[in-house]
């Protein structure tokens, strides 16, 4: 954190992030939602390991627990992507919840996605 930076930061998956198996669509956290907690900008970091040729990380937003998912950000990585790619996500005003999911675009080879979320408000 920069000196004098008093902003409220949250790392729902910790400073080093979380790993998601991308053999199928998996949502993190395993139950429930990530509470956006008033953040207007989210910094998503994504990378993957494995021999899959392509993977996609999807951030879905929800108005409440019964709402259908609406994607608010995507990140598609291929084997030539740098180790950590970044995306700045502008959160729709007032959106309370989100989930993170991972999709393997390679039907043959496996992948493990690593993602870090940094929320600032």
């Amino acid at each position, binding site marked *: 954190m920069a000196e004098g930076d008093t902003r409220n930061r949250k790392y729902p998956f910790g400073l080093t992030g979380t790993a998601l198996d991308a053999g199928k669509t998996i949502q993190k956290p395993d139950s429930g939602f990530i509470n956006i907690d008033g953040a207007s900008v989210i910094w998503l970091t994504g990378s993957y390991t494995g021999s899959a040729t392509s993977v996609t990380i999807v951030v879905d937003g929800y108005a409440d627990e019964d709402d259908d998912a609406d994607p608010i950000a*995507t990140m598609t990585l291929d084997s030539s992507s740098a180790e950590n790619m*970044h995306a700045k996500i502008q959160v729709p005003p007032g959106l309370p919840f989100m989930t993170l999911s991972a999709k393997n675009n390679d039907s043959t080879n496996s992948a493990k996605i690593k993602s870090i979320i940094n929320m600032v408000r």
Partner: protein
Amino acid sequence: MLRPLLANNKFSLDLVGKSLVIFAYGQDKLQKYNQWTEDGQKTGYTDETLSIDSTADDTGLFWMIRPVLAILNPETNYIDYLIFSHPIKSIKLTAESGALVTAVVEIAYGTVQVGQLFYAPVDRDINSDGKPDCLDSSIIGSLPWLLKGHGFSYEGGPAPVLKYAQFLTADGKKFLTADGKEFLVRA
């Protein structure tokens, strides 16, 4: 991330090394810019003005399917997008050595929302349909797929049959704008 500055209802976009994508009806409208143009990196661009007042196949913004612009950067694989609340009035393009340099976008009124996604590589076309995956609504993670959350639908294929309506005065004469142009309404 793209941050257009609005002045006099106009703003400028830097297109050096990038591609401008317009979501247009069918493959034969706004050909150099529409979503079927592989990664959009065609050569042979010249200074040109696209206008909502025009129905010309090459320059008529009348053919925009949704008020959305995408800017693809094949070098970084980032895609900036702009969602307009109302139709774009005009886009003035400048080019050098056949490549796009800037676009000055003019709107009559309304707002613009900007966003960005990452898609590597932007020119991949896994189903070989001539439309890059990052602009293919059937591909999870693509821009049209993401924008479904905004209530947008981007179906390709041939141009639909359009209906026109004219404004006529009570005696059957054309009702014109203050500068003498006809009203043209797409229904």
